[in-house]
């Protein structure tokens, strides 16, 4: 009795399954034409509210200029944004240098950098210290390492996959002092994002921290006072908008043009103010190849 039911059931399931999988994926069939909508995402280096607001404005600008509905999807995980672009689930992504390199390692030539901010070609990061800890400004990080000897200081980076709040500060520290931060500080933690680093250093949860320039600059004076800068890093390349070549030359050019004119629309202006920039400039993947090589060389990134 049971077996006689089982066979037709399996057959019905199979037919059903085949009929569904037989349908072509709407997204794929339209790949050659213009997609019906663009999905934009970004690495979460600030609060969700802020990012939804200002990247939403950029999405709106692109939508108005290119004429394709564009949606900003906020993720709270760096790896999720890289995965989304690399597997074609997102079309446009705001990456830092590290995430660009990570995406490049996955996608190779499929990745195209559309544009970067003017400040991204000469980006700087800060080392900050809690005001009550009485840590003086230092001229280089070897001096900081020396000061930290036997002090049991604690240190926080931003996210693990961040450029300006982890990789670059770490590599400057290692280059200049010859030691890993883990060997110098009692605790080396990853707080998650730039604003959290500032907050945690300001309220004394950590003695020291590292973060990028724009998040520090737009913070309130009160916070800055509690967490003064003790060291400014040399310049390095950072954020950009990346996309997939599968979108087609024409569309990528249109997006590029839209980003170039961001400062002309009122919503674009507002977003640029938040991003701490005058406007977007041309950029090419070759400018980020240094990071790709750095990561491929198996650099010690803690962990």
């Amino acid at each position, binding site marked *: 009795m049971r077996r006689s039911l089982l066979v037709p059931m399996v057959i019905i399931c199979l037919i059903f399954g085949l009929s569904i999988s037989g349908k072509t994926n709407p997204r794929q069939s339209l790949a050659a034409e213009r997609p019906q909508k663009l999905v934009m995402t970004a690495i979460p280096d600030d609060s969700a509210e802020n990012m939804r607001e200002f990247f939403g404005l950029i999405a709106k600008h692109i939508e108005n200029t290119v004429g394709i509905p564009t949606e900003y999807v906020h993720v709270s995980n760096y790896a999720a944004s890289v995965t989304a672009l690399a597997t074609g*689930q997102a079309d446009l992504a705001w990456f830092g240098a590290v995430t660009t390199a990570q995406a490049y*390692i996955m996608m190779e030539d499929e990745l195209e950098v559309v544009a970067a901010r003017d400040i991204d070609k000469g980006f700087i990061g800060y080392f900050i210290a809690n005001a009550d800890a009485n840590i003086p400004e230092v001229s280089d990080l070897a001096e900081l390492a020396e000061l930290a000897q036997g002090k049991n200081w604690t240190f926080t980076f931003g996210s693990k996959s961040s450029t300006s709040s982890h990789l670059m500060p770490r590599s400057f520290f290692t280059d200049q002092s010859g030691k890993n931060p883990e060997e110098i500080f009692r605790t080396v933690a990853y707080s998650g994002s730039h604003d959290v680093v500032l907050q945690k250093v300001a309220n004394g949860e950590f003695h020291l921290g590292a973060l990028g320039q724009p998040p520090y600059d737009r913070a309130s004076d009160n916070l800055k006072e509690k967490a003064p800068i003790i060291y400014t890093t040399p310049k390095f390349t950072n954020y950009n908008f990346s996309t997939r070549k599968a979108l087609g030359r024409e569309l990528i050019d249109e997006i590029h043009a839209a980003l170039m004119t961001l400062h002309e629309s009122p919503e674009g202006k507002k977003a640029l103010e938040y991003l701490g920039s005058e406007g977007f400039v041309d950029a090419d993947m070759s400018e980020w190849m240094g990071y790709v090589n750095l990561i491929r060389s198996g650099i010690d990134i803690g962990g």
Partner: protein
Amino acid sequence: MYRDIDLSSSSLNRYAEKRPWKHWAAIVTIAVLVIAAFYAAEWDFSSLTNPDDRKIAFARMLAWLTTFSSPDFSPEFLKHCWALTLQTLSAATLGITLAVILATLLALGSSRSVIIGEEKAQGWMRFIAFRSPSALLCSLCRLVQDILRAIPDFVWAVILVAVIGLGPLTGALALALNITGILAKVYSEVWDNIEERSYEQVRILGGGRLATLFYGIGPLAARTIQSFTLMRAECAIRNAAVIGAVGGGGLGADIWYQIQFGAWPKVTTLMIFTLALTLSADLASNFIRRQLRSDPNHPRVIKSKSIHAQVARPYIGILFALSIAFWSVWFMGYGDNAPPGQQSRNYLEPAIKLVSTDSWKNLSFFERLVKPDFDLETIGLGDQVKVKEFKKESRTVDLFSSYRPWEFWKPSAWVDWEQEMQKWFVWRVIKSSAIPLAMAIVGTLLGVIGAILLSYPHSLAFMLESSQFTGETHPWWIRGLRFGQLAVAKGLGLVSRGVPDVMWAFLFIAFFGPGLVAGTLAIAIHSLGVLVRVFSESVDNIPYRRFEQAFMGARMSCYGYTAGPICWRDWMTYSFFQFESNVRTAVVFGIVGIGGLGFFFTFNFEWFRLEKAGTYLLMIIALTIIIDRISRALNLARKSC
């Protein structure tokens, strides 16, 4: 479920001959584990012992408590919270619904008593998976469920992004996969715990495997399964931080962020919403349970006069549960489900990608995750060219170069061997599991002890309805006093489990600094809250007739000598399960800065060093499997004695 005592003389004789060495073994094992936990990981108590640190810690605690009393009730933020609450509820309910279905199917395969049933193989033979095809299927299903729950839900979410893209559905599915693993384990374990004698009539009358499940095992296990499913649903709703990780919003992700940022007024508001959600989930699950309660002797049963109302009750309960499930699907697809400041849209659409082969190809993106890096060259295996290269740089493990094996009695030999082993990546992976294990062992133990103590005032049977079995009639003020005790205990339980464990971790990190102490306390408090609920529920599920027979004048001793032993098996099953889930929580705590296995895993995962992440993941899975098998083996042992 309680067991009937077998009074046949042979079993009594056997009982008299047996010495309780197993209990001693258990106690000694626990003691050894606790000592090992303190020895293997670095416990930094300086925040408690150092007066300066202590002062800072208390000042911070006070500052936070004062800001806690002034939540942010601006209309904008309230609207924001309400939107997040609905999102969380719909995604979590969807996840749970899927998980219940999948878990039931999986548990059919992984429950020994369902798929294998009675067999000739006894004792150690039962550990061999290849003894029969159904035994093999059983171990395979167990492996699947172990992997499902061992992999943290945020990893599932990132993997699913490759298949169906960003959005709350991805989070819900990730949650579903994770909870499937949890529920399937519990279902199969509860089914296996039912005494075979209680359902052997079904077998004798010729019932097959499924008939035994539906008419024998199922009904006997139904109440436990029902409470656990509802409890898990509540947990999922509260802990659904994963939904935000991949673009879905939700309360969990926002709390996580705001806590880190120290925006305490906002956190307080979000917490109030979370607690309200927990409370309504609690009330809803109680409602469903009451409708489905089938023990006519239980005083909490609703005694309806009319036959229509009696017949209608289970339908009402099931309809209510179904309507919540339908609401979650409707909301995600067609409701006003926009994240704050965005347009609402149909988030169910990406589900179509699940059935198109193209999207599944994207999984090859994570292919390297299943090729873990065992660093064989370092121990002289694998590619011999590389081995030579490594030898030149003296990066290979040369274990007995300075100390020979027979010099094991020298402490310095062990230090040296350890340092040599340190070069091997896999050894470092294994060692990194010491931190989550240490946190989970101490935390669970504290939680279990606390829960056993708190279950007494937390139980309805002993606080409000004791007159049912003691025969006393109390003046109003004693009843009032007991009601007060019950309310306080319930409140404590609700707060300690209603506040997500990550939130507790952050709170304690603020007092004690990031480290094992903070993580352990968070685990202890959260386990206390979760366990006290299920512990006291299993006490309340005992028919009062059993108390009546054993009652000797004091409620407390009745609790200790009757309720405790009857529920002990259930309690231990729950505790072991809690321990296992605490190990996973501790792994997650690693992600938020406490270190150990979880930290290294996410580090490598987020840097897409997937081979290395794969090795750490293998370790997490191995931990889950080892603990699961031990807990099953212990149940077996108890059955045989």
